[in-house]
């Protein structure tokens, strides 16, 4: 004969669970609170960064520096804060870096997603992940020791001599090696891993059936890539490009070491540049001298933050939408 349960309520602890005064349910509530507090504090952390930068930007505007922000006069002792050379420096370097890394990263990503022999895939992938792990000062050191002599002694005479006459962006005005080109090359290597891993991931996520349909219609492999994979993955690739742009835009140490840090607007690839990040890194301690200098430097930070922030939001929203569409 089966033993019967006299009171199923006490046996299964139903009452205890439903009772709001019980210890277990209190712990349950408290723990949820604790987790929520942790989340709130991480939101607070991020918004306090934004608030600090915004506050100083507003102060900067209040002091009436805003109208001259795009002039090229940077004379902190006289209260002149023109950001043009720094913004131009950042843009030059980032554009050079993207021009080099885009074709390389894009082609490597296609190769890794579509063509690579299966045995080679995981070693190549882990090598690229390795590349992502190398600290930025190490890239900077490599640029300083190898790239700068290379640009100064070989690239500048070679390219400047042949193309410099016709195209002003290849003209060699000052040949010190520290240049937009050197910084661009270092950055391009640094952003490659992000670009490759994101684009390769989205291309791999394109369903096999789509490719098979194209192949069954007689398309060659490249035609399949062109008409199916790239079209399906385009928004994800776009997000990858934006994220790597952000990385290049905000990189500090490597650029600080190889860009030359001369506060003039560069006009050629071989000119030195002074990007925003390097400006902050070199002068942050001087901000204690005058309040307006502090506002100016934090405004530089605010500019960097706002641009990378908005680009990131666009990229993340694109990726999110892509994931939702897949589901």
């Amino acid at each position, binding site marked *: 004969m089966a033993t019967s349960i006299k009171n199923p309520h006490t046996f299964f602890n139903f009452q205890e*669970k439903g009772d709001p005064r019980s210890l*277990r349910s209190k712990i*349950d509530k408290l*723990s*949820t609170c604790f987790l*929520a507090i*942790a*989340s709130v504090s*991480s*939101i607070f*952390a*991020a918004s*306090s*960064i934004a608030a*600090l*930068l915004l506050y100083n930007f507003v102060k900067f505007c209040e002091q009436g520096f805003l109208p001259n922000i795009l002039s090229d006069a940077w004379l902190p002792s006289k209260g002149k804060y023109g950001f043009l050379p720094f913004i131009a420096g950042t843009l030059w370097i980032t554009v050079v870096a993207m021009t080099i890394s885009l*074709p*390389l*990263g894009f*082609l490597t990503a296609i*190769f890794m997603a579509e*063509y690579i022999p299966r045995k080679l895939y995981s070693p*190549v992938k882990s*090598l690229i992940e*390795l590349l992502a*792990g*190398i*600290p*930025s*000062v*190490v890239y*900077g*050191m*490599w640029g*300083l*020791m*190898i790239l700068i002599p290379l640009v100064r002694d070989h690239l500048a005479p070679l390219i400047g001599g042949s193309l410099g006459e016709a195209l002003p962006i290849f003209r060699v005005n000052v040949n010190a090696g520290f240049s937009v080109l050197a910084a661009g090359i270092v950055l391009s*290597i640094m952003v490659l891993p992000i670009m*490759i891993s994101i684009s390769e991931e989205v291309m791999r996520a394109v369903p096999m059936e789509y490719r098979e349909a194209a192949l069954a219609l007689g398309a*060659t492999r*490249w035609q399949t890539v062109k008409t199916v994979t790239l079209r399906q993955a385009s928004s994800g690739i776009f997000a990858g490009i934006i994220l790597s742009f*952000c990385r290049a835009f*905000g990189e*500090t*140490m490597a650029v600080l*070491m190889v860009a030359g840090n001369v506060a003039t607007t560069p006009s050629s690839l071989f000119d030195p540049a002074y990007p925003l*990040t390097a400006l*902050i*890194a070199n002068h*942050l301690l001087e901000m204690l001298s005058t309040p307006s200098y502090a506002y100016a*430097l*934090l405004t530089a*930070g605010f500019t*960097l*933050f706002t641009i990378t*922030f908005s*680009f*990131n*939001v666009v990229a*993340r929203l694109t990726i999110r939408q892509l994931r939702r569409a897949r589901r």
Partner: protein
Amino acid sequence: MLEEKLLRLIMVLATAVVLGSLLVILVDVVRRGVTALSPSMLIELPRDGGRGGGLLNAIVGSLYISTLATLFSASVGVPAGLYIAEFEGKSRIARTASFVAEVLSGVPSIIFGVYGFVFFVIMLNMGVSLLAGALTLAYLELPIIIKATEETVKLVPSHVKEAALSLGATRWEVLSKVTLRQASPGIATAVLLAFARGAGEAAPLMFTSGYSNFVPSSLLSPAANLPLAVYYLIMMPFPEAHKRAFAAAFILTMLVLSVNWSSRIVFKRWGRYVVK
């Protein structure tokens, strides 16, 4: 067919250039590092303003700062990641936190340095110190830990959680005794990756932890670290200092890469015990 072959050739070339540049950099760092490295580099403090002696200050400083930063960051990031993964559908806080973490991961590292300098060093009056540096670095590591925790927790199969719930466990009991254990290999990996990321950063620490030629004696004394050692030493005009920069870069690269590598091993080893 010509297009096919040509493009394939270009792709192979592009991949070769990418991998080649990686190998060139790695080989360069290792070659310079190995010739510059000696046992005294690892156990001696610097002498003559950095021109002689070892790198003990930077090695110990780096380990202190990154370990502390990872501790701070994990103590907020792991619960936040758990919350996001468990409550994303129900709570607006969770969705906001998830989005904030994603966006925070793209903020340039120098911005954290600026924030740390203004907020911790000046406003909270910590001075240029080990503690200020570690807190600043914790901000930088936070998104890594949050996102990785969130992702691994989401991967825990719902039938495992439902089994525990059906036995009468409360939500917290399921979370702490089932979900957290299932996710522990992933969380451990995230913590190690965040440590490696923190150990390689120089820009946030320039103004927050500062630099000193001694091993830090307290939380409020300035502390050196390896990335900044590389930077300061390579910018000096003396060949002896450059040699020490090469050694520092080699030690740093090996530290970061080996922590990265061990995070994978941890994931593989511990991952075997996870219910799929």
